[in-house]
């Protein structure tokens, strides 16, 4: 099941494990991504914490964790190929995987259709 935040992160949840990235809309707004700083394994994040940084040539943006939990791994492929975020933001360009500590937090997130409607109004 995939959820979105108003800050344009997405999270795919399978069991208690979530995979987090930024939305296709977000990458299109950022332009060419040149660098991604993903969180280290084991890092404890609360919902809304600054978890990663994504940089284009002229801007750096913080990526917030959509849920609380412990980071399992950052996407190692982004170190050499930050352009994956441009080419496949909601697939190969994922940022990190996290063990959810409170699945109830997902209730406050949007499902895909709601997010599309949200973006359409921006």
């Amino acid at each position, binding site marked *: 099941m995939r959820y979105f935040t108003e800050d344009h992160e997405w999270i795919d949840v399978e069991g208690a494990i979530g995979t987090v990235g930024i939305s296709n809309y977000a990458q299109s707004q950022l332009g*060419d991504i*040149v*660098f991604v700083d993903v969180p280290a394994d084991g890092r404890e994040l609360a919902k809304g914490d600054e978890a990663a940084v994504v*940089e284009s*040539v002229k801007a750096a943006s913080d990526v917030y964790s959509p849920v609380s939990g412990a980071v399992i791994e950052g996407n190692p492929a982004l170190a050499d190929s*930050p*352009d994956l975020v441009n080419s496949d933001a909601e697939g190969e360009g994922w940022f990190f995987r996290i063990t959810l500590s409170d699945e109830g937090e997902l209730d406050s997130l949007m499902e895909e259709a709601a997010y599309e409607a949200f973006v359409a109004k921006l």
Partner: protein
Amino acid sequence: MSINQSGWRPTTPTKGNDAAPTFTGNKALMLEEALIFKIGDATTTGVDFTGFGAPTAADDKLSGLARTAPIGLPGLSEPETVRHYTRLSRQNYAIDLGLFPLGSCTMKHNPRLNEKMARLPGFSDIHPLAPVDTVQGALEVIHQLAHWLVTLTGMTSVAMSPKAGAHGELCGILAIKAALAKRGEGARKVILVPESAHGTNPATAAFAGFAVEDIPATPDGRIDTAALIARLGPDVAGVMITNPNTCGLFECDLKTISDAVHAAGGYVYCDGANFNAIVGRVRPGDLGVDAMHINLHKTFSTPHGGGGPGSGPVVFSEALTPFAPLPFVEKQGEHFVLIEEETAGEHHADSFGRMVAFHGQMGMFTRALTYILSHGADGLRQVAEDAVLNANYVLRSLEDVLHAPFAGAGPCMHEALFSDSNLADGFSTLDVAKGLIDEGYHPMTVYFPLVVHGAMLVEPTETESKAALDQFIGALRSVAERAKAGDASLKTAPHFAPRSRLDETQAARKPILVWKEPAPIAQAAE
């Protein structure tokens, strides 16, 4: 009549002269230049050491730490060196070549008398730790410049050592922090910064451990005074305000704001980057400012040098004076003394400490003092007037073709602000900027301040003649009209510069920051 055709030659070039690429890659006076790592080598040197004494390899005192591996530093002979850097220089735009309308940067003429004075051996060839009796003239230069800066700003004292504007900001903010600590009010953790501020302001406040809160702007481009005053309270340490602000407007409520900030127990930092607009006409001290840095490389004409060195003395109000950093110069009778750590206790017990190794940018002090003495009090006043006049002339001459968001609010100060809002679809500020390059100008400041979409900030400065302004206005009008008409050739401008648009994405994705020997090409099999 008889026509002598023996000397005939075509004087009108053929149109569409897309000549074949040249053998060298050069185009007449536009010369390509290789890296020193390509043209130099490790055995060549342009320096002659004859008569410098003999080496003592046999009984060295290097404790077995002699450098044996190759360093990889190419050398060139003097003629090659002069040619290399002369060729490089010709790929730069500069004030010496033309109008440099970079808003908020005050690119004015750099008088050569300044350079000559800074190079007098009595200034250029003295050591910072020389006994103070042997450098009385240097200390007097610092003292005289300090006197001018304090008097022109109507403040109480000045810290001369900060190395640049941002360093000066840090100096001012640290003084505020020290003053709060002395009052036992370390709990004041918030610095208020207007949205239109230069990026160094929030960076500086954050470095000093303050939380930064944005203050919105009003539709006429000024600070929302009511919002600022409403935010004041026991957690607010102070405000950082640029005046004139980065939209080129005078913050007319500054005195009201200062009074309110002081009443609420905070301090007022003024970013003095735009002091050129008001020097000799307004004293920040009369507006309740507690600290302000002065960019000697802006208002006082020391050269920008392709990105520094700058110099950023900070003037202080009486309230912050005790907290100013070391070192500083004092006149005791006819003698100038340098107050450093040793004597700070008696003279300056509350100083927040030292910011740099020595005494600041002496080479910039001699230049700035030379400039100030040249202009005098009357000339500096004229500087501000002409700077403001030139900017308003540009604003009024172009507001019909470019959108000027705040033009209706009255005159601007030293810079004119335009936006990209009436360009053709798909055309941006960047295209206008690059189009200006082909017209032979350095572009204006673009995409700053952030409060205006696609901002174009034009600061002509007072050292431009009316004829120079008229030509620039014509050029910018022409480019703007092309951008409004959707002229596709603008999207690929510049066409006539040493380089076309550069790929910044590639530079940032795979950074190449130093030159490396290319990997050897595999030898063909025998």
